[in-house]
């Protein structure tokens, strides 16, 4: 089984657009996972049917039972997150600030603070327009624990692949370098990095690749909008060479990518445009690199 994760560090480089294209090109031979749980956009192009829904809970939050509370103030004293509020002598928990550590519950002499499982979001198992299975999620607005939700999506995608006897999982990862990305990368076999020749594109790529290196995962690079700044594209190529990253594709700056999204199709399906040929070529190169012996 090969688990392929597409990430970019910086947002807006074309990561989701390309992942959705690869999902279409991979057809029924793979399971698709959307781990960009804060900004889950792949469903807009892959048209899932939301066949199975599961509510996902992870972590806890505190709640004060007012009937039992004697307003001793111990919870307020120990909370490091300003989650205990006092108004007219009434103690309450600000759920938004509560980290779920349970310190207040532990020290409450009246046992007036139960810890309650927190809803993180929903996980869906869908059939998409290619006939493949996709696992995707919706984070509850403002919820903590997006990393746990990412882990859940990956776990379910793996289970689906095993059940169907499939050899590949394709994951749209999250931006940044924090816990959702760490969760996205955990257990991955190959990373497709998507970037653009801008100062922020390069900066963010280098940071996220430092993280990828810690996981010792092989990576390929796609430089999107490569003709925007040829000097920086050269710099990116040199960087890739120095880090032993295979450059899979140089994509042009072409507003057809946005046109495809606006029409609700992937770049791969936009056959009137040059971009469909470009993404097909990128996917072939990626597959060759994925199955290459180390």
């Amino acid at each position, binding site marked *: 089984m090969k688990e392929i994760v597409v990430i970019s560090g910086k947002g807006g480089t074309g990561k989701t657009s390309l992942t959705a294209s690869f999902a279409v090109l991979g057809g029924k031979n793979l399971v698709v996972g959307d781990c960009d749980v804060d900004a889950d956009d792949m469903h807009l192009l892959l048209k899932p049917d939301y066949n199975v829904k599961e509510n996902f809970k992870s972590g806890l939050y505190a709640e004060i039972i007012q009937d039992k509370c004697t307003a001793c103030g111990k919870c307020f004293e120990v909370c490091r997150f300003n989650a205990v509020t006092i108004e007219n002598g009434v103690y309450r928990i600000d759920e938004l600030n509560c980290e779920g550590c349970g310190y207040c519950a532990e020290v409450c002499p009246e046992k007036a603070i139960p810890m309650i499982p927190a809803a993180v979001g929903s996980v869906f198992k869908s059939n998409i327009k290619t006939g493949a299975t996709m696992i995707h999620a919706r984070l509850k607005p403002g919820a903590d624990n997006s990393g746990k939700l990412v882990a859940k999506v990956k776990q379910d995608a793996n289970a689906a692949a095993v059940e169907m006897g499939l050899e590949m999982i394709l994951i749209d990862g999250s931006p*940044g370098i924090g816990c959702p990305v760490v969760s996205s990368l955990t257990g991955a076999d190959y990373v497709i990095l998507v970037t653009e020749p801008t100062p922020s594109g390069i900066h963010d790529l280098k940071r996220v690749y430092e993280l990828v290196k810690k996981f010792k995962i092989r990576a390929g690079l796609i430089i999107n909008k490569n003709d925007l700044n040829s000097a920086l594209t050269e710099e990116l190529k040199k960087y890739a060479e120095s880090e032993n990253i295979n450059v899979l594709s140089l994509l042009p700056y072409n507003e057809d990518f946005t046109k495809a999204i606006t029409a609700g199709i992937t770049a791969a399906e936009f056959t009137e445009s040059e971009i469909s040929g470009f993404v097909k070529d990128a996917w072939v190169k990626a597959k060759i690199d994925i199955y290459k012996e180390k």
Partner: protein
Amino acid sequence: MKIAVASGKGGTGKTTLSINLSSYLAENKIFKSLILADLDVEEPNSGLFINGKTVETVEKYKFIPEWNKEKCTNCGLCERVCNFNSVLQFGKTIMILPELCHSCYACSELCPVDALPMKPQRMGEMKLVDASTYTFIESRLDIGQEQAVPLIAQTIEYIDEYSQSSDDMVIIDSPPGTSCPVIEVAKNSDFIILVTEPTPFGLHDLNLAVETMREIGKEFAVVINRWGIGNEDVIKYCEDNKIKIIAKLPNMRKIAEIYSEGRLIYNDVPGFKAELSKVADFLVELKRSSN
């Protein structure tokens, strides 16, 4: 007054708006003093566009417990109270997993024999930069650190101490998404500008951001970037949901090229400057009505 520039979707132009707006406001002396803070600590980018002098660099620490083997009686309380599986007991050994620790102090303070004192651990770095017409503050998470929130929280505390005058305007380049990092910024800000683009992705993620801001009870308005690409659904969405659109920054290849050169845009693109001035006017009005 603190204004967070945020977005559900990444790459919609948060940094573009933040740096151009800050420079424009400072250059035209629209507020008495201006601070730009980059709190997208996982991938801070604003600094790439600023040629300033670093005045101060501060290492930032979070506190995690350290096991004192000699004092420990292996009572097991620490493992039991930790809700994050960060403190584990294996026989007579206590193991701490720092990346899972939320610094709640429960294990440390409840330990009956003080065998888990809290010790500082570096999580990143904050720097203060003199950008000549304004002040720039950036925080940067160390690679391998998973939690952005403690660093964001500490930097906001610093900003609040640094800008004690109510005349100050603080523009915050925020993390993307709708989860804890952006919540930490938004809940500590007075107003949120949501940057979006007129595409199905942009609109979907704008909707998530709007739901999030409503959930935490924050006021917000929208700036549309790359106006001219995609479709006009975002206009209808904002009208239907009674959301103010402050400005529409134009879509031009030239803007993307200038950005790729690490330069400011408004001096070279009049259409961009005209829309930027609308954002400035909006902030002036917002400030006036808050006083």
